[in-house]
């Protein structure tokens, strides 16, 4: 990156980081209050409705739920800042909630990341080509494909892929994240771990397990990114500066890259950021179909059992990911668009 881009971008990042921490703090309060306002509660979930008032009171005291809610919140924040989120009460009773997060979350992130990667790598070139051949057969075909992508529920697509590619034709594994190869764990991202420890068969196995769920999940961002790219390219092609570029006799490659795509990427990048929420939700469903062992299953049990610790850590971390991705989006926006960073 040239020097005159770096400085302003850095200042921009710091400003956004501050905003971001504010968002997370507010969110943590809302989440805390919301969870405690849900009907039922941890104690009823564990002891059942018929427990005696004495045993309820004892459990409440043990869990610290008898204190005033603001005290509970301050205690939660104080511990969270030290990286402690308390013990699970329902998913794996007694286990540290943060541990549960650490074992579950990488699976979901790995899956979502590959899904968005597939979507972007296919959707952006396709969107460009479709826009350039507006009204042609390729354009029409890909618009229809993207409509199908929007319309078909992700778990249904997951079932279809699993049925054909795993069960019927046996090309790819049916479920799970990896064969049991005795792989060394480093980060919890299995593909990455295999590369780090040079256990390439571990990476390969993890990748094969990822393919079907990732393609199923990719259908969500694919459809959106494709349509936004196509629309953005169509808009940019009508811009005066593209005509200027043509009037300069520039080569097709330069016009495509520097003048059309660079401008068309602005709305696309924003869209990708906004897709992360839908992607995490879709990941929960996809994980279920492929028994993938991400946060999806843990979230479901935690909700049933009103496992506040696990819910708090998982939801806050998911929100953090969402906010961080959108920060990255804004940064790339600032790198692409000088009007943002020099404002």
């Amino acid at each position, binding site marked *: 990156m040239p020097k*005159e881009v770096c400085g302003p971008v850095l200042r921009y990042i710091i400003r956004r980081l501050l905003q971001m921490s504010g968002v997370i703090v507010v969110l943590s309060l809302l989440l805390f209050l919301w969870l405690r306002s849900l009907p039922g509660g941890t104690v009823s979930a564990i002891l059942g409705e018929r427990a005696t008032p004495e045993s309820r009171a004892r459990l409440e005291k043990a869990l610290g739920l008898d204190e005033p809610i603001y005290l509970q919140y301050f205690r939660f924040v104080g511990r969270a800042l030290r990286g402690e989120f308390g013990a699970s009460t329902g998913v794996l009773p007694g286990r540290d909630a943060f541990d549960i997060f650490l074992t579950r979350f990488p699976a979901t992130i790995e899956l979502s990341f590959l899904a968005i990667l597939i979507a972007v790598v296919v959707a952006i070139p396709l969107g460009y080509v479709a826009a350039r051949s507006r009204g042609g057969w390729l354009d029409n075909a890909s618009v229809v494909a993207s409509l199908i992508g929007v319309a078909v529920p992700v778990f249904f697509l997951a079932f279809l892929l699993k049925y054909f590619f795993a069960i019927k034709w046996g090309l790819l594994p049916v479920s799970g994240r990896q064969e049991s190869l005795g792989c060394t764990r480093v980060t919890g991202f299995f593909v990455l771990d295999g590369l780090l420890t040079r256990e390439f068969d571990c990476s390969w196995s993890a990748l094969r397990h990822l393919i079907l769920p990732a393609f199923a999940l990719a259908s969500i961002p694919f459809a959106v990114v494709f349509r936004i790219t196509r629309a953005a390219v169509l808009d940019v092609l009508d*811009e*005066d*500066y593209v*005509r*200027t*570029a*043509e*009037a*300069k*006799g*520039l*080569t097709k490659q*330069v016009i495509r890259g*520097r*003048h059309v795509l*660079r*401008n068309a990427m*602005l709305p696309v990048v924003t869209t990708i950021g906004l897709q992360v929420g839908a992607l995490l939700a879709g990941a929960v469903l996809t994980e279920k179909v492929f028994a993938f062992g991400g946060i999806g299953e843990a979230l479901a049990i935690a909700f049933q059992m009103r496992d506040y610790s696990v819910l708090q850590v998982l939801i806050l971390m998911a929100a953090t990911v969402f906010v961080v991705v959108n920060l990255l989006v804004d940064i790339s926006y600032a790198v*692409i*668009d*000088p*009007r943002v960073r*020099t404002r």
Partner: protein
Amino acid sequence: MMSDAPLLSVEDLTVTFGRRGQEPFRAVDGVSFQVRPGQTVGLVGESGCGKSVTSLAIMGLLPQRGNTVSGRVDFEGTNLLELSTDDMRDRRGRDIAMVFQDPLSSLNPVVPVGVQVTEVLERHRGMTRKAAMPVAADLLRRVGIPDPDRRIKDYPHQMSGGMRQRALIAIALACAPRLLIADEPTTALDVTIQAQILALLKELVEDTGTALIMITHDLGVVAGLCDEVNVLYGGRIVERGARHPLFRDPRHPYTNGLLGSIPRLDAVGERLTPIPGSVADNLPWDHACAFAPRCSQPIERCTQVTPVLEESFGRALRCHNPVEVPR
């Protein structure tokens, strides 16, 4: 300095736009004119008369679909309309360059201005970005941008409108083209900046010997700049002449009307007389004079017979009942 062989010779240029469910529309209808090396030729007319379409057709920049172009555009003996898209790409920006109306939207907002200058040099001169940068800075200096070594890193939104138009002119002149087409280059600018840009264009084309096609709806712009003026109405040339004779005694009622609607400093108190009506009132050229419904002195023939463009003594006129020359 002017030789007689034309640099550009447009012959019977016709551009037709197909419109869904309607008659095809001839935006440019048999236009012919010539530009000699170093000459400045004006293309004047109201909005919608086909000025931009004419220039885009010469540049080969009309949309790929939805229109048909016929006639000839001979540039140094080659018919540009018959060139392949790749050959045309080689000539655009090198032999013929263009400056557009709106300097903000005509520059890429996410690319530094310097790069937008160097990319032409890289493309047509085979220079590297590094070698082209000082040349680009020089070009910016020549078009009157102060502190060009710093300005070269600016993005378009960091420049004023006048400066952007100067940058666009620098881009257009980067490869020393033999023909420059300027499509209303000052319309989007303040009046004072307009005058500066026009003076700059005049100076540059005189210095470099570049021929210029000046497209404008403003006869005032033409008056200070052009050797010869073509007046367009409804896609056809209705009058042509050298600047002085044309301004002294306009023969076509439309030209006369245009002259009547320019504010003049020496005519304080005199009322401006705009041409009544609008292009929406046009008759089709096929059986009439398109201008007849708005004309100040129509005769019966005007709505029955299409007038032809008649040339004599360097003047061309398409009118059944021309304005009398005062004796």
